[in-house]
């Protein structure tokens, strides 16, 4: 599937476009915490894969539970979306985007926005102490 030039893509390929691997997640738009939805475990696997739900020894259920809500909030924070904890349109539009397979959170440590904010808070405290002194 390497096309040497954008204009060299054969018509047979153009006429046979496959759906994206995560397009079906859009069906979860509007799902709310506390309820159960068929296939929601797949979305949990997505969040698990990228580090938003910690390692679990058991299979994920289809319940919209606290772990999923927390994962969504962290995801929204990392991608600077509105932090609602819900599967709103803008969040799911972002989730289905193609992406790098490297996790955003590794061994419980966010490699993205959350960690940076902690570092910033420390810096702010340091400056505050300097001013007080």
């Amino acid at each position, binding site marked *: 599937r390497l096309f*040497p030039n954008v204009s060299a*893509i054969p018509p047979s*390929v153009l006429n046979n476009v*496959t759906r994206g691997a995560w*397009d079906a997640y859009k069906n979860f738009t509007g799902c709310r915490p506390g309820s159960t939805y068929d296939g929601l475990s797949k979305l949990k696997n997505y969040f698990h894969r*990228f580090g938003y739900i910690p390692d679990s020894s058991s299979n994920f259920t289809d319940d919209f539970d606290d772990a999923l809500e927390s994962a969504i909030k962290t995801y929204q924070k990392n991608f600077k979306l509105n932090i609602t904890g819900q599967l709103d349109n803008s969040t799911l539009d972002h989730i289905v985007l*193609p992406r790098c*397979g490297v996790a*955003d959170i590794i061994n419980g440590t966010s*490699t993205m926005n959350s960690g940076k904010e902690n570092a910033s808070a420390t810096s702010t405290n340091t400056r505050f102490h300097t001013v007080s002194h």
Partner: protein
Amino acid sequence: YTYFEGTPRWPDGTQTLTYAFLPGNGLTDDVKNVFATAFDRWSEVTTLSFSEAESYNSADITIGFYTGDHGDGEPFDGVLGTLAHAFSPTNGRFHLDGDEDWVVSGDVTQSSLSTAVDLESVAVHEIGHLLGLGHSSVEEAIMYPTIAARTRKVNLAEDDIEGIQNLYGSNPNYNGTSTTSSRQNDSSH
């Protein structure tokens, strides 16, 4: 910018990292040149340089296209979804999903194929991982985790440059603006 846990990096004194392509992929020179250009974007701003190795087995960085489960515990998932992944220093493995519709050259934003993915854009991002950068929340940064199909994004942002220079130092020839014109061309492209 962020780093991986423990801030792994290539050892002090590393000047040139070698890379090689999985022989079984049989990549053309045009494809290989895309990776060379992607490596250049990082070497322009750091003290590191990159060269293609003769031997796949002895190269610091190995690049290959794979499909589905390819043995590293991170199977690819077909069209779109996960596009590629790379390992932190000094592992050197760089894997791309062979099921994607990779576009090597031309204006991918004008592609009629809705699943077209710009190869260089993904290569520049993954090289960042190979060098030790994690993901960034800065949307303009190369190290931002997502990229839509039919998008070209190859310019290192300030966030990327600051992150990599903190790890390896700055290229003495880099003045912060030397590559701007070529990058603007790329952006308009």
